[in-house]
């Protein structure tokens, strides 16, 4: 039965730390009329791993997560958690904790009673569940706020209570559907770190959903980029950024310049420089070359082909917006036939550049372009 399985997989008696369970989503399909919300979607989570699904709004992230929770039926495909096929297992027996985007706390219960809810429906006695609830509130740094009602808590505090509530019954899997999207920027950063810290400590296998790439890259073991109901690429944050498998991923993760280029025998020529890359195209073809802002160099040059349009100070680096490729050099009006490229350089190196300065922009020698 459920309970025995779960108990075995969950607690590692030696360390007292729980080892998570493996999750396997295999070839899930789900259509809403014409829309394929899940289109042959597969995903594996290793025990204790935090995987983030990242993608634009409407790409099927929520549907995937809800399919795992049992809240959304799938047309076909299997969900296996801890070696057990969950087909036909109702939501309340799936033993998963879930944190919603917002407003999911029970408004008529205090923070403590919210956290204790899962224990109450399992018939735990009052003293025990109170103890456990307070322990979890401590864990999310809300000790002492247990008697507040949800509407007396800030958005960030509410989400922390929601996290504590999801964790209280020691779920096998933790599911978070854009839990930070409704919060303001500062709280968002602090809370995502807290979520990650708690998750690491408990070792609960976690699926996190967001459309915010920075969020995804900063807290995940692995990030899966979704597009139109399928997984486009799944990799560690560093790998995803450095080696995006497709232009879509490249575009979605980090900032990307699109530059016109021409293929050569062994690579591509862009901004007057040749870069080695396999393109799979005959030489001389016009292509779209994708380069990160930090893979470009900018040097002051009154006779250069570029004109600085603006600079954005980002701290250690400064982002220089350069207009290139205008046939008529006319102070970089918008509406010319060129493009604006973004170049990230150490702030000290480009301190002298201001709008109107003539510059040359070229790829760094070790730049790794992506060709579309």
């Amino acid at each position, binding site marked *: 039965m459920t309970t025995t399985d779960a108990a075995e997989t969950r607690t590692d008696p030696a360390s007292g730390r729980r080892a998570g369970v493996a999750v396997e989503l295999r070839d899930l399909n789900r259509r809403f009329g014409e829309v394929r919300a899940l289109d042959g979607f597969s995903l594996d989570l290793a025990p204790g791993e935090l995987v983030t699904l990242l993608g634009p709004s409407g790409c099927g992230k929520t549907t995937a997560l*809800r399919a795992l929770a049992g*809240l*959304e039926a799938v047309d076909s495909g299997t969900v296996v958690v801890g070696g057990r096929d969950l087909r036909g297992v109702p939501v309340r027996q799936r033993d998963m904790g879930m944190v919603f985007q917002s407003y999911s706390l029970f408004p008529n219960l205090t923070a403590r009673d919210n956290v204790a809810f899962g224990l109450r429906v399992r018939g735990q006695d009052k003293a025990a569940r109170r103890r456990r609830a307070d322990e979890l509130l401590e864990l999310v740094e809300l000790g002492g706020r247990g008697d507040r009602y949800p509407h007396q808590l800030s958005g960030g505090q509410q989400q922390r209570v929601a996290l504590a509530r999801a964790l209280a019954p020691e779920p096998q899997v933790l599911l978070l559907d854009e839990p930070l999207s409704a919060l303001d920027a500062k709280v968002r950063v602090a809370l995502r770190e807290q979520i990650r810290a708690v998750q690491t400590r408990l070792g609960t296998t976690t699926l996190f959903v967001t459309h915010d790439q920075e969020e995804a890259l900063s807290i995940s073991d692995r990030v899966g980029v979704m597009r139109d109901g399928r997984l486009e690429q799944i990799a560690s944050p560093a790998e995803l950024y450095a080696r995006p498998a497709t232009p879509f991923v490249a575009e979605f993760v980090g900032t990307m310049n699109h530059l016109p280029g021409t293929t050569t025998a062994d690579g591509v020529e862009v901004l007057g420089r040749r870069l080695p890359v396999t393109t799979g195209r005959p030489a001389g073809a016009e292509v779209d070359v994708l380069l990160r802002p930090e893979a470009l160099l900018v040097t002051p040059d009154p006779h250069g082909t570029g004109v600085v349009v603006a600079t954005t100070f980002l701290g250690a680096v400064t982002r220089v917006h350069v207009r290139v490729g205008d046939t008529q050099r006319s102070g970089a009006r918008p509406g010319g036939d060129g493009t604006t490229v973004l170049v990230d350089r150490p702030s000290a190196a480009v301190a002298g550049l201001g709008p109107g300065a003539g510059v040359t922009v070229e790829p760094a020698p070790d730049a790794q372009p992506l060709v579309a």
Partner: protein
Amino acid sequence: MAAVISDLGATTTAEPPAPARSRRRGGSAWARRLVLVIAGLYFLVPLYAAFRFAIGTSDGGVSGAVFAGIPAQDGFLDAITLTVRLAVIALVITLVLVVPTAVWVHLRMPRLRRVLEGVTLLPIVVPPVVLIIGVLEVAPPELKGTPDLLALVYVVLALPFAYRALDSGLQAIPLTTLVEASRSLGAGWGRTLVSVVLPNLRSALLAAVVLTVAMVFGEYTMASLDQYQTFPVWIVVFQQANARVSVAVSLLALLGTWALLWLISLVDRRRQSPEDT
């Protein structure tokens, strides 16, 4: 009556329904259907029974003649004319009083909203039968001699509910921004009200109109005690004459309200349809 108002008002404020994330729940789907069937029977059987009775003839046959004959019945047209007149008077006064007040309160005295909400409860506290005693006692004789006094009192019954409908309608629109934009473009208050605020309150206004009209067409207590033959009173006076016709008229009264509400929901739906799809 109260109900209609708050409901129609509420529909204007309700958030757009989230896409239904529905899921089969076996047992409860069954229970749900049972509830709906029982409710359907309770509400439809009397309609059918009344219809059967109305079209019956004394010799056991069936005839639709009663329905066709209604407009020609004694006093029917007078009753309808009087009721329409009262409805129009009550409606005009209600709107003239309520619309500017509601807008004003939203713009200038948001804190008063709670107080006015309290006023909304007064007609429940004071039953119409009590109110009419007092009204007949204090009304000057010139007013007592005309049915228009009824219309003036109907306004009191309609005011709070019409106010509620508009209030929730106003909640749903960015009133301050609209008014400021219009004023900064040089429009006067009157023009701002008519061409900027009102068009944005269409649903709420419709609700207020339906409410007031439906109320006047259903009000019996006051009209009968003030001894004027409005439509609801006529039905009663007439019942002594012919039971079949009375039942037929009763059915028509019900279907008439239905048609009215349906028409109004059509207007509203057309307005919303682009968002729906």
